[in-house]
């Protein structure tokens, strides 16, 4: 095997008194894809940041081409050919796609910017990823997947010797993921060393040459990826068997409508949405990215202007504002935890109770009760944080997602819409979350799950609505709840669904 | 003999006249401290009435003043606190602006604001015997400014002088420059300008000069800034006169108070420092080349 380009030897890292990495060894080789997997909070992102110079190691050595190095900052690492794509978006929201693409290394024509040139180059790289986002659009208006594609395009354009990618596929669809993996293969062929994390083990299986598995800051497996199958990987990560990912579905009780929606329209995004949600039911919402699922339900929950009639428990209701929704027992969990879900510079306690402060306060907020609720949530959602007083922005991505779930559930909504419940969540926790959602339904709550992961919708939901171009394309349930049927509805190719073939591999 | 402390409380140097007054106050304090070993001075400048009240409270609470010389920012708000000082047994000298209650101060060294306006108005009327169109620049909106303008209006009433417009130039060169430029755009014919203050007169003159207009016969400022008095003395036709309002009145007040305190023969009563018309004939008397103002 070729010599490693970049390697860590016995690297440890502490934040304050908490050590999160305990002597990690990892080596990246040219022309190979190295996958790094592990539970949420295992230390994957931290490892990657150390390799790319974003954070210093507390102890241990980093070797580049066999020589020990210390990077003063990421600029230095980048100058040595190491480029990283962050788990968190690393974009200036008020700037345009092109401005972000070239941020920090703008092309110039004499004294001035070569805008035409930069537009063309940005366009070229985005096209390579089949990303249609316009180069003059302001980034804050882009969907998450386009933001991720922009980050990837930016990294690709840097001619890296080592490319480090932290969960690049978390917000991508299968199709986009395929495009990305295509690019990764091309880079590999070109001799680039690639480090890659994902909680989607099928991707890991499909692309990785080498594999490192981490648990609680330790490396527990290191070797060729081919030696383990997905089950073994999951087991090595979680330390227990996770073969039954989805809880069993109970027999459907007599339908008892809780939420009735008729003719809901969210101008510009969705029209003529009608459906009924029953007590104790989990309703899945499937559809392609951009099919308007998020907007529909944000409209329903009063977060966007909308029209249409909504009945809750048979009573017609007007939901103009998010607090109206909550008053009717309707909760919404956003797909965008960073900018809409959590206050990143506040503690877990403050975030957890933000939506349900009323329940924790008479005249004053009962901080003891809050702490108790946090303890409860940490247990129930398996939130792993070194320190309870940690700022939420310093939690690992998956643990943020768990906290967001806990926050939404703390308001005890009767009806809850969960948009992309398991983005960035490890497989062990996924199983726990699915159990949790099913348990909620069993308690008599009604749940809508919007998800871009086909298996999640099928495995979890009692019934699936498929959306296409802002309308409901159809409903599937029982035996018809198959990937094939859903894809046909989502793509509007009823009856001639062979295009959906690539999915079957999953 | 133990040391006596005199507190001096004046408004901060936010415009030309106040700047001159600040200069004279500091100069008097330095001179008197050097002359009388047993005198100590506390000088505080205030940017608004509330700050001035605080200054006086501090002097009373921490410096045990035996006398206070105060040039009130405004009469009303200062009346109570100065009364407090008087009740504590200290000597009180009030300068320029009277308090709103009579009989508080031991000594009153007064400027004459209505008189300032009246003298200006009378001069204006005498220079324009056949009447004429004038524009007026006012100071910062305050009682002082109101008194001056009222005096001026009273003196010009029925003389054929038409006041085209009045705007606030805030005793500021830049503001008066801007206002005058706009007056010049607005009125095709202006016979004279009452700038009511020499700082404002400077701005007005610059605006007129830049416009190249010939119709304005003269500009009447006020307060006796040395450059302006010099030009009157030299017979500059644009600045034929000035009206005094000497910022040095503060020094006079401090001096009388100090002498009174030291000699144990206090001089009480009222000194009115009237506003005098300065013309080329008598300008020499009012020209102090060493003054900063």
């Amino acid at each position, binding site marked *: 095997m070729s010599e490693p380009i970049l390697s860590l030897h016995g690297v440890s890292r502490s934040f304050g008194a908490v050590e999160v990495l305990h002597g990690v060894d990892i080596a990246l080789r040219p022309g190979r894809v190295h996958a790094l997997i592990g539970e949420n909070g295992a230390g994957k992102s931290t490892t990657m940041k150390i390799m790319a110079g974003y954070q210093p190691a507390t102890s241990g050595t980093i070797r580049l081409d066999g020589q020990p190095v210390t990077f003063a900052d990421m600029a230095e690492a980048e100058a040595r050919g190491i480029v990283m794509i962050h788990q968190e978006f690393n974009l200036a929201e008020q700037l345009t796609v092109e401005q972000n693409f070239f941020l920090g290394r703008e092309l110039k024509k004499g004294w001035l910017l070569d805008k035409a040139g930069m537009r063309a180059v940005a366009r070229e790289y985005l096209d390579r990823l089949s990303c249609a986002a316009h180069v003059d659009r302001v980034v804050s208006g882009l969907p998450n997947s386009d933001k991720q594609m922009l980050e990837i395009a930016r990294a690709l354009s840097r001619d890296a010797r080592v490319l480090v990618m932290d969960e690049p596929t978390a917000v991508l669809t299968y199709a986009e993921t395929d495009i990305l993996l295509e690019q990764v293969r091309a880079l590999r062929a070109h001799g680039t060393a690639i480090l890659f994390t994902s909680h989607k083990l099928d991707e890991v299986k499909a692309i990785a040459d080498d594999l490192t598995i981490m648990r609680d800051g330790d490396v527990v497996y290191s070797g060729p990826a081919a030696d383990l199958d997905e089950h073994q990987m999951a087991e090595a990560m979680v330390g227990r068997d996770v073969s039954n990912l989805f809880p069993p579905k109970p027999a459907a009780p007599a339908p008892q409508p809780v939420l009735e929606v008729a003719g809901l329209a969210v101008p510009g995004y969705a029209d003529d949405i009608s459906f009924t949600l029953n007590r104790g039911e989990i309703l899945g919402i499937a559809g392609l990215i951009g099919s308007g699922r998020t907007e529909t339900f944000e409209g329903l929950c009063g977060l966007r202007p909308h029209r249409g009639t909504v009945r809750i428990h048979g009573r017609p209701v007007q939901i103009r504002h998010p607090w109206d929704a909550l008053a009717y027992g309707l909760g919404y969990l956003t797909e965008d935890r960073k*900018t809409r879900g959590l*206050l990143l510079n506040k503690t877990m306690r*403050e975030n957890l109770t933000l939506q349900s402060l009323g329940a924790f306060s008479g005249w004053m907020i009962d901080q003891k009760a809050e702490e108790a609720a946090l303890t409860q949530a940490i247990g129930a959602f398996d939130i792993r944080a070194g320190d309870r007083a940690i700022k939420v922005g310093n939690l690992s991505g998956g643990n943020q997602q768990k906290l967001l779930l806990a*926050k939404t559930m703390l308001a005890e909504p009767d009806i809850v819409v969960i948009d992309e419940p398991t983005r960035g969540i490890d497989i062990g926790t996924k199983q726990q979350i699915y159990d949790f959602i099913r348990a909620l339904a069993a308690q008599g709550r009604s749940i809508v799950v919007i998800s871009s992961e086909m298996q999640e919708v099928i495995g979890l939901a009692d019934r699936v609505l498929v959306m296409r171009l802002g309308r409901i394309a159809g409903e599937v349930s029982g035996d018809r709840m198959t990937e094939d049927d859903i894809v046909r509805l989502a793509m509007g190719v009823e009856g001639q669904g062979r295009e959906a073939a690539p999915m079957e591999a999953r | 003999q133990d040391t006596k402390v005199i507190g001096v409380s004046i408004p901060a140097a936010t415009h030309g006249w106040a700047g001159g007054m600040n200069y004279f106050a500091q100069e008097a304090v330095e001179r008197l401290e050097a002359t009388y070993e047993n005198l100590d001075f506390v000088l*505080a400048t205030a940017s608004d009435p509330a700050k001035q009240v605080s200054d006086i409270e501090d002097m009373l*609470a921490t*410096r045990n003043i035996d006398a206070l010389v105060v040039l009130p920012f405004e009469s009303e708000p200062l009346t109570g606190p100065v009364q407090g000082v008087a009740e504590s047994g200290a000597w009180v000298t009030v300068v320029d602006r009277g308090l709103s209650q009579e009989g508080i101060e031991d000594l009153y060294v007064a400027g004459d604001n209505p008189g300032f306006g009246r003298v200006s108005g009378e001069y204006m009327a005498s220079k324009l015997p056949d009447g004429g169109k004038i524009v007026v620049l006012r100071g910062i909106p305050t009682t002082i400014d109101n008194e001056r303008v009222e005096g001026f209006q009273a003196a010009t009433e029925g003389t054929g002088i038409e006041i085209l417009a009045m705007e606030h130039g805030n005793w500021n060169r830049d503001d008066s420059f801007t206002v005058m430029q706009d007056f010049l755009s607005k009125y095709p014919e202006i016979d004279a300008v009452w700038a009511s203050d020499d700082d404002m007169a400077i701005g007005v003159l610059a605006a007129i000069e830049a416009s190249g207009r010939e119709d304005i016969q003269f500009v009447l400022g006020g307060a006796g800034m040395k450059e302006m008095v010099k030009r009157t003395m030299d017979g500059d036709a644009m600045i034929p006169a000035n009206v005094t309002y000497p910022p040095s009145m503060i020094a006079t007040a401090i001096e009388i108070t100090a002498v009174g305190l030291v000699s144990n023969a206090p001089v009480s009563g009222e000194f009115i420092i009237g506003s005098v018309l300065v013309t080329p004939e008598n300008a020499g008397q009012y020209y102090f080349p060493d003054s900063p103002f």
Partner: protein
Amino acid sequence: MTATQTPPARAPRRGLPSMTVLGPILALLVLLAIGMFLNENFLSHANITNVLARSAFIGIIAVGMTFVITAGGLDLSVGSMAAFIAGLMILVMNAALPALGIGVPIILLGMATAVAAGLAAGFLNGILITSLGIEAFIVTLGSMGIYRSLVTWLADGGTLSLDFGLRTFYRPVYYDGILGIGWPIIVFAVVVILGEIAMRSAVFGRHCAAIGSNDQVARYSSINVNRVRLMTYVFLGLLVGVATIMYVPRLGSASASTGLLWELEAIAAVIIGGTVLKGGFGRVWGTVIGVLILSLIGNILNLTDLVSPYLNGAIQGAIIILAVILQREGRAGG
């Protein structure tokens, strides 16, 4: 679900408080030491009372400003608003004098006027900022000009004065108190305590911090962002009214120069106290320290004649910067 290694419910480190907490207090102590060194009367009851009482106006306003800034807003109009309310209060009381005579009712009328005008003014600022979505800086810069003009106009360019008899009757509200503690100090203390509780332990304070930190997240957490934001301005308006109630008996008048630059002083106090200008984090007790630091600088400069009075502003500016450096330096270290 499986039990996991829950970290012990550790409170934020108990040991030494950090420099962001110690910083402003330290700066205050240094100033106190300097004051004591320069003048033996510095710690006299009279001087301490004076300093505290005169801090009360800015202090009461700054408490309100803490909430506005914490919620990501700003209010430049408070100084002019105070001047306007004072003018209005004086006009109303003078006008009612023939009907009501001197007595408690007319004072109550004046107070009610101030409170009502404060609430209305705060509401106006707030509604423009929240409903029309205009930058707070612009709205309050505009209303700053408007109130300042209005008071000049009400006073006809001069000074509005409370009837003398009335003033004598009203005077004790500033100058008296209970147990030797002046009313302004008592009111200030009450406002601070309520403010600290509201900021730290009430839903309102939590919501302000959430909105200032990220208003999208607040909205998605079902917080009525516009209402909370509006409330901060209304609350500030109310406190400006309260401050004015204390201010009028002190000076008995209002003019165009009343409350000049109070807005800058209040904002500076808030920031010296450790509240973040861009919002998201605020502390009321810090603001109190900020206010005291600013008042003490003025007081100490009056205690001595070390420097030319022309340079007072420079000393003041330098101390403000130093006080904050002390705090930040610590932060970098700790």
